[in-house]
């Protein structure tokens, strides 16, 4: 189904798939540069959800009638699509969650509580999103364990040799982002996994910013857990997924309990359903999963290699354009980056940058990007962040640069 990787990328055609991009913003064409926060949705995703509710909807795994059968099949197909997207061996290794945050919480509560004890350590990095900090911090507090943090350089690159030194017999898990949401840094996940595995330490990868931007293969990465959110992958909100090696899922206790995750229940004893159902208590977000499946079809048809190349070209273009404005400083200059341009404007707070750009019809994010420890490390209260999606075009970055010149002018 995928387009040939060398076929030209027709962004104008892609844009026609996104109804929201047809609207104007403050009298100007909308420039949406906040895809790292959440992606806009193609018509195919919207249609899949409407279709399900209009034609096929019923609860799954229950009814003996056709609607329930169809609903169940569509839900199961969505799981299979996630498996293929991540290059996983088996669809039983895919657990649907609300989002990446819930997937991390699931691992912290289930795997973490089982394996982390007093005096043990969980190792994360300094550039994590709060979602990959707070669950581990709370686990460590509960277990009297220690949260350790591998440092990053001023450029925003993980200091691998420091991370290696911090892995010890006490380390029970390494958790890191594949791509930093605040800076765009691509972490050397394969190298980290190799270092951790040499000590028998499992690795969780937060792929929220990676999955929408380039092909991911969990078996090639060699990690143990991989999580992402559907809404950043052009799918609906409320659905995400955890991939975990089957042997982990088999051994892990349930995260939540209730209907659907059981095999049999009496008042004395309950036995758990097979994986992945053991981790999916209650009626799941059926429409969310089906919508996510449609989103995966959509990006797969475009080809994630081509999306990656398109966004890389845009990132280079944007970096060049912002570099031409003396008052603008790009924050995060890692050699390997994806999709994110974080910056500050001299003498102007990022919030004011955001307000002025909004008046130009340009949507960016300003703030700490749910990465306060990273901001503290960089000595900044906040940054402005322009982030790319598969529908952005060179013109969007030219409008951004023009908008930033207005910001500078206004505060001169």
């Amino acid at each position, binding site marked *: 189904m995928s387009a040939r990787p060398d076929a030209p990328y027709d962004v104008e055609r892609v844009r026609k798939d996104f109804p929201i991009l047809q609207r104007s913003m403050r009298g100007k064409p909308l420039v949406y540069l906040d895809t790292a926060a959440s992606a806009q949705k193609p018509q195919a995703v919207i249609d899949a959800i409407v279709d399900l509710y209009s034609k096929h909807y019923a609860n799954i795994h229950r009814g003996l009638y056709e609607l329930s059968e169809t609903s169940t099949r569509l839900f199961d197909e969505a799981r299979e699509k996630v498996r293929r997207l991540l290059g996983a061996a088996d669809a039983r290794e895919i657990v649907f969650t609300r989002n990446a945050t819930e997937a991390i919480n699931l691992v912290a509560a289930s795997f973490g509580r089982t394996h982390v004890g007093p005096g043990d350590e969980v190792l994360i990095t300094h550039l994590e999103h709060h979602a990959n900090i707070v669950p581990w911090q709370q686990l460590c507090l509960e277990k009297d364990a220690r949260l350790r943090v591998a440092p990053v350089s001023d450029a925003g690159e993980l200091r691998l040799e420091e991370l290696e030194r911090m892995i010890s017999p006490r380390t029970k898990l390494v958790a890191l982002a594949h791509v930093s949401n605040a800076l765009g840094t691509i972490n050397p996940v394969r190298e980290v996994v190799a270092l951790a595995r040499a000590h028998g330490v499992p690795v969780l990868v937060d792929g929220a910013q990676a999955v929408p931007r380039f092909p991911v293969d969990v078996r090639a990465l060699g990690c143990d857990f991989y999580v992402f959110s559907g809404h950043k992958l052009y799918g609906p909100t409320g659905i995400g997924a955890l991939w975990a090696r089957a042997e982990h899922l088999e051994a892990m206790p349930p995260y939540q309990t209730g209907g659907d995750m059981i095999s049999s229940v009496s008042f004395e004893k309950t036995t758990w359903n097979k994986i992945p159902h053991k981790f999916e208590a209650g009626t799941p977000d059926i429409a969310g999963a089906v919508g996510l499946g449609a989103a995966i079809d959509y990006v797969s048809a475009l080809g994630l290699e081509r999306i990656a190349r398109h966004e890389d070209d845009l990132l280079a273009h944007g970096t060049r354009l912002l570099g031409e404005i003396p008052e603008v400083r790009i924050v995060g200059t890692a050699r390997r980056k994806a999709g994110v341009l974080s910056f500050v404007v001299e003498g102007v707070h990022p919030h004011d940058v955001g*307000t002025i750009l909004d008046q130009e019809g340009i949507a960016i994010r300003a703030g700490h990007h749910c990465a306060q420890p990273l901001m503290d490390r960089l000595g900044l209260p*906040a940054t402005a962040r322009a982030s790319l999606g598969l529908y952005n075009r060179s013109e969007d970055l030219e409008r951004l640069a023009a908008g930033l010149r*207005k910001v500078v002018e206004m505060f001169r």
Partner: protein
Amino acid sequence: MSELRELYQTMILDHYKRPRNRGRPEAADRRAAGDNPLCGDKVTVFARVKDGVVTDVGFEGSGCAISTASASLMTESVKGRRVEEVAKLFDRFHEVVTGASEPGSDLGKLTVFVGVREFPMRVKCATLAWHTLRAALEGGGAVSTE
């Protein structure tokens, strides 16, 4: 651009770049800290109250143009006023920046913030220092001497 110019008036930019009453007054006996977790703006407001009158006031912190200018102009506007008057002034200021009422001469220089009403997401920026001042005057407590 006209709405933007109204938001970022010359006086606001001036107070952003050169905030007045920055720092902790020597004799301050009230303080409170405020923050806007959404944007990371932080402010600490110090005040000295004598016989029910705010005799001195200052602030520290970092924030956007609106929150910094608001803190700066607030300190100029409340110095020498009775505590009850300050509370009334805040109410009026709040009404004006949220668009609930029109500005009048009673606001003095604070009328420059009238443009905030067109930017509902920035109301919190304009009122952060005021909320913090109110906390300082109401609960206050002694300024730490460390």
